[in-house]
């Protein structure tokens, strides 16, 4: 075990902030967790003994990484396209 691992795929600059990245990476997770949680909390229903909003938050453990992964891909593809743009 070393301080550094074998991966070298992350020695890149951080992409500039863009509106689509902020919407998918920040706005959507907040809407999913808070919006979804509040909506289900109002229903006062349970599934297998657990309140629905808690089940929903558990589901968000998968949905939030999915949002961040899409955001990562958006940034990567935007930079790839920028790199391919011919210099005039």
């Amino acid at each position, binding site marked *: 075990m070393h*301080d550094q691992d074998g991966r070298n795929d*992350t020695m*890149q600059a951080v992409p500039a902030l863009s509106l689509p990245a902020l919407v998918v990476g920040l706005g959507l*997770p907040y809407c999913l967790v808070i919006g979804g949680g509040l909506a289900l909390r109002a229903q006062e229903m349970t599934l297998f003994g657990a309140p629905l909003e808690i089940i929903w938050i558990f589901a*968000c453990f998968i949905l939030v990484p999915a949002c961040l992964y899409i955001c990562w891909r958006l940034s990567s593809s935007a930079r790839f396209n920028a790199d391919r743009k011919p210099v005039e």
Partner: protein
Amino acid sequence: MEISVFMAVIMTSVLIAVYSRYRHAARNARDFFVASGQFGAILIFFLTIGETYSIGSVLGFPAGIYTQGSGFGFWFLGYILLSYPVGYFLNPRIWILGQRYACITVADIFRNHYASRALEILVVLNTALFLLPFGEMQFAGLMVVVRNLGWHIPGMMMTGLCASLTLAWILLSGIRAPAYVSILKDVLMVAAIVLGGYAAMHAMHWPAGMPEFASASNAGPVLPGGNAFIVSTIILQSIGLCVAPQTVAFLFTAKSPRTLQKNQIFMPFYMLMFPFLFLMALYVRASGATPASPNDVFMVAVCATLPHWARGLVAGGCALSALVILAGVCLALGPLVSRNLMPGHSDRAQKIGAQITIAIYLVVSVLGGASLSGLMVILNNLYYIGITQLAPGIIVSLLNRRVSAIPIIAGLLCGDLTGMGLFFFHVMPAGLNPGMIGLIINALVVWGGISHASRTSSAPLTPL
């Protein structure tokens, strides 16, 4: 058997700490506190995870579910989960700022960007004050574990030994010790919680035997302020978790900003242990057991469902959780005092000064932990009310505008005073978390100050 397994876990952690020194003896203060920014994705992942899930999380989550029902779970899980998207955008940019100013602490950012000694001191006082209860919380949690296992060890002796162990780790190899040990700790915690959760599920025949108590109408007292309080607390703490002094210090251990960003994508998966903790809380309510205090819920479930060897494993995992967090807090606090509060010393003097500060902090925490009572969540709330007030100053520095320190100082003071004042007087305007009100006032003061300055001589640079 319990004690043998527990001792084996502790001894393994000591061996790992020694190994971390053998691989990389800390050469200077920067290497000691932030590993010279050499950590790769795996170590950063485990260090960050290790510092997020303390013994307070493990004991506090089932305790809150047991006493306050689903509202507590919504808040608790929501803020941790949403800190990852915030960190995804914030962490790599803070890292870049840290590289630019060769930072070791969060106060270094404020000193270098705003060129203000007064602001630096204010940030140190603000963070040190709110870090104090954090150490005590770990020891209080440790005492809960020992008490429930029925070990006849005086609490003070146990916490004293743990504090000595933490100090030994830190003196051995600085930040590398908790980073390497957190791998063991994180694996152990997941194993223990999954085991406990599965055993609880089996014992109450879940989901076939759905417990009556879990219905929403029978979920215990609701949180004060209702949904407004829950949502404002989630937003406040999801930001606070990312600007906490120890979190910021760990960012500086990373080798690259994209490593930090990529890690944020995978970190929520570690939260998949919480459904098992939830099941343990349900089990305690279904079984009709009466824990001595809400903080005992986790250990009551562990003792009722797991064999002796597994209890030792849980105790070891809990102890490491407390110690890794404690080591992280110590390593954030030490340089804040020796480097920021008393600047101008040599590299060696900074390191020694930090080690003395850490020793004093550990003694104070051991003494405080012995008399700590009530739900740990109360201390947690106080912690975030103060720590999150750093956010506006950090965000302005990320925007890279040349602004005076005065609006940042004014904002920080207003935010702290408002948040703390409302908290102690139990006032929650519109049901919002007092810390959130403080943060809004803080942000407004900073924004007002910057707007005023921009009319005169603001010179924005390239945003990070």
